[in-house]
């Protein structure tokens, strides 16, 4: 086969919705794009544990604490599924960690915002996980097999995350005036960053067309953003909270909500590392990795010792 026929074979598979598997031939750019997207996704899961981890010790009840612990543990698991999927493309775990820690790889900008009150745990679950689900559900049908399988697992687990977040918001919104205010304040701070989670608008997203062609992406950023706004605005109404967008208006003709302009300067600023918590998040990650080095080494040394002991016993028994 020539390069040309490899390419044709690959294109035909994509067109016929046949999944690409790790050992199949794939164009270099397809591999590179996937590594970038999947590892970025994995990093987001891992860094995403930090803003929520901040509130585990201060959860208002044992029930809330157990739930939050389970959620944060899930995020760690999601990071693992995704790192594993990326590893099938020929990059190592350590290389990916290194890219994260040196700032070469990005993670979702949303996690560079601080979690100031307990209500933020509600807003993150409801909005941030809600936006993530909107993004992730179509990825269960993405063209790369290991990625799609990881996403199926992630989506199954993620839906409780959004529901527990909404429950927190609902409880606060039905509480005292101070609690309601706290819920509204969290919505005010998390709404726009959540909207930005879908990434730049289609006109400024140069990779979208190619990613759609490869079926790595199934919907454009703007399509997903609109879908998220349409469902979330209704949810906010249900619990009597106000979405902080004065231009928000139902458009009968389009069958969608119209919404106000997004502050893309803020978005790019945070992407470039100037968000409120960029430095803190990365430092927390690096510290955990570096301070954990002796544990990793010790576990390896222990495993080798155990193996040697076992072999020794077998020799004696023989």
């Amino acid at each position: 086969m020539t390069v040309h026929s490899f390419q044709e074979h690959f294109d035909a598979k994509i067109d016929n919705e046949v999944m690409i598997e790790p050992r199949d031939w794939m164009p270099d750019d397809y591999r590179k794009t996937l590594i970038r997207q999947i590892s970025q996704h994995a990093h987001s899961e891992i860094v995403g544990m930090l803003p929520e981890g901040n509130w585990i010790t201060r959860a208002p009840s044992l029930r809330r604490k157990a739930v939050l612990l389970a959620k944060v543990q899930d995020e760690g698991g999601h990071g693992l599924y995704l790192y594993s999927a990326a590893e099938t493309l020929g990059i190592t775990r350590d290389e990916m960690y290194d890219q994260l820690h040196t700032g070469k790889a990005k993670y979702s900008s949303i996690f560079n915002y601080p979690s100031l009150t307990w209500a933020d745990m509600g807003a993150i679950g409801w909005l941030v996980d809600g936006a993530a689900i909107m993004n992730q559900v179509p990825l269960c049908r993405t063209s790369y097999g290991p990625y799609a399988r990881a996403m199926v697992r992630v989506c199954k687990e993620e839906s409780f995350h959004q529901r527990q977040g909404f429950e927190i918001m609902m409880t606060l919104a039905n509480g005292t005036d101070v609690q309601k205010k706290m819920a509204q304040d969290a919505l005010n701070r998390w709404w726009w960053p959540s909207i930005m989670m879908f990434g730049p608008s289609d006109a400024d997203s140069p990779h979208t067309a190619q990613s759609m062609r490869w079926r790595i992406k199934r919907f454009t950023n703007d399509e997903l953003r609109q879908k998220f706004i349409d469902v979330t605005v209704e949810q906010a109404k249900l619990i009597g909270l106000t979405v902080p967008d004065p231009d928000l208006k139902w458009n009968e003709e389009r069958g969608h909500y119209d919404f106000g302009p997004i502050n893309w300067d803020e978005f790019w600023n945070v992407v470039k590392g100037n968000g409120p918590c960029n430095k803190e998040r990365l430092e927390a990650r690096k510290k955990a990795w570096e301070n954990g080095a002796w544990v990793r080494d010790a576990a390896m040394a222990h495993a080798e010792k155990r193996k040697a002991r076992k072999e020794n016993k077998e020799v004696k028994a023989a």
Partner: protein
Amino acid sequence: MNQFINKNLYGDYGDKEQAAGSSGTHNTAGEWPLWEVFIRSKAGLDHKHAGSLHAADAQMAIENARDVYTRRMEGISIWVVESKYIHASDPFEAASMYEPANDKVYRHPTFYDLPDELKHM
């Protein structure tokens, strides 16, 4: 031809040694070994591939697999095997490998044209 095939060696580490040089850029020296995890979801069913993880040894791999792959009662039994011991068929040979099955439709019961009156067969 080889130069066109950016062959990924995941799932068949035996190939890695043979194809020396083609994957020389990756240094996995400091990493815990990679393990493949197989889970039996309930008695009577096969173990099924669930995913992979890094662990220092088999015991740790099983414990970690419990934590990441069975948090919601997905399994009652776990197998782990170091990824380097998995050997896989070559996708580039798939056509010739599985072709012999294509022209043997008589291996399927529907191949035989029998009268409708025939019962219990």
